[in-house]
């Protein structure tokens, strides 16, 4: 049952990921990208990480992509602006081929043996995913969390300075 579900979601994810790069209209590409994010969120749910799934939809699909769509709309990129560039196709297909070889090698040759930590699926079900993430974030990972928040603060101040004419 879960495998079948996984296959369906993967099918949609791959189709929409292909559409992201093949669509002529940038808005349709953006829509396909949102669909891909949605499929990724579904994977998180299947991996017993509902918090990650919700954040994935909220942050990526709900916030970042809205900004992207906004930008595309306001710039009003013409559909006919995307001409064919043959040398780009050759170059990118070489890169794509090597990436494929690399990924195939990793998939078939490597033994993925993840050390099992204290957080099993049962524990996540009992305590709750959000609670576990919160506890870890504010105890063991407090310093990275604070550094990230300072980084964001700097970015906010920068944005305000850029947007304001008179400071």
């Amino acid at each position, binding site marked *: 049952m879960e495998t079948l579900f996984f296959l369906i979601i993967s099918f949609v994810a791959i189709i929409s990921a292909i559409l992201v790069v093949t669509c002529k209209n940038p808005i349709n590409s953006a829509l396909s990208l949102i669909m891909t994010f949605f499929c990724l969120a579904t994977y998180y749910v299947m991996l017993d990480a*509902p*918090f990650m799934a*919700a954040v994935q939809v909220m942050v990526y699909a*709900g916030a970042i992509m809205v900004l992207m*769509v906004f930008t595309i*709309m306001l710039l009003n990129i013409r559909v006919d602006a995307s001409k064919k560039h043959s040398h780009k196709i050759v170059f990118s297909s070489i890169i794509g081929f090597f990436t494929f070889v690399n990924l195939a090698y990793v998939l078939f040759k490597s033994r993925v043996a993840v050390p099992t930590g204290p957080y099993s699926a049962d524990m996540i079900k009992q305590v*709750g995913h*959000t609670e576990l993430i919160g506890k870890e974030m504010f105890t063991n990972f407090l310093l990275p969390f604070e550094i990230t928040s300072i980084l964001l603060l700097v970015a906010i101040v920068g944005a305000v300075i850029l947007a304001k004419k008179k400071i």
Partner: protein
Amino acid sequence: MGIEILGLPMMYYIAMVAKVLVAFVFVLLTVAYATYAERKIIGHMQVRLGPMRTGWHGLLQPIADGVKLFFKEEIIPSQASTFAFLVAPLIALIPAFITFAVIPFGGVIEVAGYKIPLQIAAYYDTAAGQVYDINVGVLYILAMSSLGVYGIVLAGWASNSKYSLMGGLRASAQMISYELAAGLAIISVFMLSGTLSLNKIVALQSGFGGFEWYLFKQPLAAFMFFICSLAEINRTPFDLPEAETELVSGFCTEYSSMKYAMFFMAEYANMVTVCALTATLFLGGWNGPLTAAFPLLGPVYFVAKVYFLMFVCMWIRATLPRYRYDQLMHLGWKVFIPVALVNIVVTGIIGYFI
């Protein structure tokens, strides 16, 4: 217990399908009759009668409207971006409806020895003896409501008309800013409850004849959440995206027939969602007297609370004039967000000492 499919009893599937069907048919009917109720209530508040001709006191009006819209000619503007134009109403409508999957509308009922929690995305674990629902219910609702903005933005852009584009831009700016404020407003509720699961939040508000409601512990948060949600779903007094006097009909100017009806339904479904969420978070959800003895009273109380809040929405619409755009942005960014942040800090300090 009886037949099992893929490790789950047959009753599980029957109960799931039944819950989905009942909840969605009920929401659809509510949406249809909310349009009628709105016209009737506003009519009476303005000393008019409202719809009177179709059926007894106009009771068949929603059906007549539906039939009319269904048979209208479907127009796709020739300069429109066809794909985006076609999917925009769907993107607006679907998030509005699937939100109901996580809202608990009743306690646990027992049918033929099988316990069913009245919440779509939940199941009763007989071994643990408790209901498990989606752990991040509220985040799920916030995530879905943040997707609704795409429908409106795309509709505005794809129509290739200046009124639509202006409406779409206004709507998206408004929805993004008020989403933030609404999200910040309800954080203080989670600080009190310590969980994001809606089922547990409802359970925490039971007892003491309604005085455990978060409305009394977090009146400011309740007020702000309701107002911000009204702005987020573009209801009056914040319905600038479809300000008739300036923008014809805003983002859905170019739409006709069923696609227009879909936007209309999305608007009312969003209203039902917001009222249901407010009732769940602040008014105790399905809690009420005698729910322990008669579990079927739970849905009745829940529906009563939701309908009361919807009446408040319509009342506001009949009473208040529309905001100006700069006032709206000022209210969102410079009043609600700072007040919500202060509310979080105050809740944290009080919670630390109690």
